[in-house]
């Protein structure tokens, strides 16, 4: 069945959020939020970290202000681990 528009948007939003947090907040690419024990969701934790940095409301959820900030052009953070 064609993906319902809101579900499609939801998928795009999740992709934007994951990609942003992987690029700038070191969210592990293999993070499996569902497999973790209940209390721990790395994506929500990293999202809170980002929201706190930018002085946004810390909800752990991608609200409009958070998504707007994620879409702003910015400085990259190169991977210095290696």
């Amino acid at each position, binding site marked *: 069945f064609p993906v319902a528009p809101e579900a499609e948007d939801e998928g795009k939003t999740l992709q934007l959020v994951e990609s942003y947090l992987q690029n700038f907040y070191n969210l592990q690419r293999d993070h499996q939020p569902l497999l973790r024990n209940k209390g721990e969701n790395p994506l929500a934790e990293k999202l809170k970290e980002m929201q706190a940095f930018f002085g946004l409301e810390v909800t752990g959820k991608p609200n409009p202000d958070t998504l707007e900030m994620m879409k702003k052009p910015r400085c990259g953070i190169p*991977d210095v681990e290696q």
Partner: protein
Amino acid sequence: YVFTTGNPKWERKNLTYRILNYTPKMRQADVDEAIRKALSVWSNVTPLTFQKVEDKEADIMISFAYRDHRDNSPFDGPNGQLAHAFQPGDGIGGDVHLDEEEAWSKNGRGYNLFIVIAHELGHSLGLSHSNDPGALMYPTYSYTDPKEFLLPQDDIDGIQAIYGQSDAALQPTGPITPRACDPKLTFDAIATLRGEIIFFKGRYMLRKHPARAETELNFISLFWPKLPSGIQAAYENVERDEVLLFKENKYWILKGYDIAPGYPKKIHHLGFPKTVKRVNAAYSDETTGKTYFFIADRYWRYDENKKSMDHGYPRKIVSDFGKIGRVDAAFQKDGYVYFFHGTTQFQFDPRAKRIVRQMKSISWFNC
């Protein structure tokens, strides 16, 4: 400001840099100038010096790169990530990579190369991202006219904490980001704008929407890239849906996001005598169509319908508005006029012709 994890820094003060390649989107001389100017932003406030080298390894290697450029941190095409830089260290340490696919420019179009490189060099020297929205080291891009650029105080404090002050006799200081609830906050100009109130301060504008509790801080250049910072007076002509902004002996007319063509014009175009060099504050009374301009201890009245100054002006401010002293900013809202003098605000009732209340300048920000 924030130091990079591990506090990396260059042990030498005399560093070298090399430009490895150029972007076809700008003249080579403009790229050279942007990089030279960006380096001077940091050398002006520290003992650091930067010498250009052509044909050997340099501490800071500057290059334009495309997508995956073999540093494990690929670029992402236009917008998104604009550039990145590596912390002080050997080899790739200190290097600056710029995303070749961005619309690089030497002005307000696309992304200003000078601003981005100045930010990246902060990383090359050991600074990480600051959460001060007015700082150069804030992670998101915002345009400032390079001719008007002053390194913000937050960045000066950060870099001097790593390398110390410059040897100059007079230590440079930088703009401090206004905070809405700072009790010492004063304003350059204030105007209503389509139901909102815009408070101008330096490069910034604080935007108060009647329905939103928090106050939004933006760069003036975010909305109007061609406007200068340091606006001195402003008022809204509600009927014509225009805002007039004044700086020194010039004024601009804004219509929404656009600056009316043919502006700025000289303020004498409005009928001021040549002796008037600038306007301190202004407000417009929507019910009478009269606009009041405040200059030093006097004020003029302008008729928006006749588009000329009324006779019998200027008059002494104290004669008609009471002891409000020199006016920094003024606006009219819901029939009252609000005058700002330093950190004091006076609410004036034009019908009763007297001050009815005195408040702090920040009373509008729900502190």
